């Protein structure tokens, strides 16, 4: 482990401003030519929104609530994500349900409401880490915008449908009769 003493003194030659200006222009020109010869797709600048960056696997973007094959929500309203959230932006209300089916045979709890306030969320991914049921995960959508605050308050149905292809399954529509609570049938349609 050594110590490097850094010192730079200019020679009279370098003191002539013209020289360093010429060198600087040379660098600029080199980049200019290089940039002209690089196709747009290979440049560092991404022409958003015409071009979009491909997000790597494991990117922490907008959440999705996962579902089973039959469409039932995986979440069992255990409140772990709510507890683990450093921004305190998840609020869950649980409800009981007892209709049995294949995938949720023994479960007796599910969320009646599941809200995430996306304006408070810091996309830290701690909810995903805390979930013992593999029911919530953060995916690659980072384009979150809305005209008012209320629409950034994502409810359970928004969170199930945040992605066009959730787990490769078709989108869910909310049952007609009750606007906020899901239907009592296990297989939501």
């Amino acid at each position: 482990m050594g110590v490097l003493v850094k010192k730079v003194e200019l020679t009279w030659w370098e003191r002539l401003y013209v020289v360093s200006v010429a060198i600087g222009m040379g660098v600029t020109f080199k980049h200019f030519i290089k940039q002209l010869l690089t196709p747009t797709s290979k440049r560092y600048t991404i022409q958003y929104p015409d071009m979009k960056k491909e997000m790597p696997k494991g990117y922490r973007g907008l959440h999705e609530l996962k579902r089973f094959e039959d469409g039932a929500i995986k979440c069992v309203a255990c409140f772990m994500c709510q507890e683990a959230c450093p921004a305190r932006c998840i609020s869950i209300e649980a409800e009981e349900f007892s209709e049995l089916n294949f995938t949720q045979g023994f479960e007796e709890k599910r969320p009646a409401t599941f809200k995430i306030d996306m304006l408070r969320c810091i996309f830290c991914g701690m909810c995903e880490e805390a979930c013992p049921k593999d029911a919530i995960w953060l995916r690659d959508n980072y384009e979150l915008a809305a005209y008012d605050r209320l629409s950034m308050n994502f409810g359970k149905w928004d969170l199930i449908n945040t992605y066009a292809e959730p787990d490769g399954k078709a989108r869910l529509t909310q049952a007609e009769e009750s606007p906020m609570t899901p239907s009592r049938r296990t297989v939501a349609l």
Partner: protein
Amino acid sequence: MDSIAITRQMLDGDRMIVNMGPSHPVTHGTLRIVLELEGELIMKATPEMGYLHRGVEKLGENLSYNQFIPLTDRLDYCSSILNNVGYAVAVEKLLGIQDPPRSRVIRVMVSELARIADHIVCLGINAVDIGAFTAFLYLFKQRETIYDLFEMAAGQRMHTSFTRVGGLMRDLPPEFLPLFDRFMEECPAAIDELETLLTRNPIWHDRTKGVGAMSIEDAVNWGYTGPCLRASGLAQDLRVAQPYLDYETYDFDIPVGTTGDVFDRYLVRVEEMRQSLRILAQAKRKLAEVGPGPVIVEDYKIALPPKEKVYTRMESLIHHFKLIMHGIEMPVGEVYSSTEAANGELGFYIVSDGGKNPYRIRVRPPCLPIFSSFDEKVRGRLIADAVAELGAMNVIAGELDR
């Protein structure tokens, strides 16, 4: 500290009062400096901070030890992984544990990447402030690659939250190393280019030489650390002085300057980027030596068990619930741990009363002592020098105000 309100006496005098900031291009954050001018000369500069105060330390008292990690991202947001690592090292010191070898190597890797990214921002922006726009443009490509690497490793570019108490949030993905290799090839050339543009440029010399010079004694008395202290000539680096994360096994040099002016700080930062690249090359070799393995301690009282176990085994599920609901079982005590962040010594002082949340967290930001000497440095100089000085101090408001 003097009042920052504009007094009648100040108004009656010949001096002109100019507010630099709170939102001014050179302040890089919200930072207000009240300048008293006589012509172009600065007679007095009174900094006012607190515009970006978010109460991080107080918030920490209401969050568990792991939940505080996302808040450390927002201290020095140009190199958030360094803060994550610094905090994790502090909590591990309090717990008296060590993270697994693979995690230590990865931590060193991402730390050095973050250091390079931070220096790129600091040098690039400083050059832009002074008027050399070109250097900034070409160097920032490298920062882009670093952020892509972070995005792969941690899942986000700026607010990484990569560490956890006892290790890392996850292992490096397989795509990481190929891009890392490309970065290692391209970065030295980009740094050379920066040096071609600036190091021997007489205009850059005229603007930076002698600005904000400081002797070693003064620098130490002000509490300087990091590149600003080393620019004065003292070879002090916490990675060498009190090694953490096995830094003693890496071979690197400490660059020092001679006068401590803006130019010397520039030279020191450029050389530190080169040394970081050296460390990165060694770390990559080490990563291959260590081989695959856990990246977080396998003590389920401290770190969450792996997900497969949580889904299938009762005992792991219980640990999982217990850890999230009741937090880590902390020993009662207090600890001060400091790491070498890009700006200097980043310290965390944690008092634990054994509960889920820390009793008190105090952050020692490296740029607060450095910034407090601002008045002394710019007194009697031109406004343009203040701009150069502020950039070279690398004052990050998020860290300054906390």
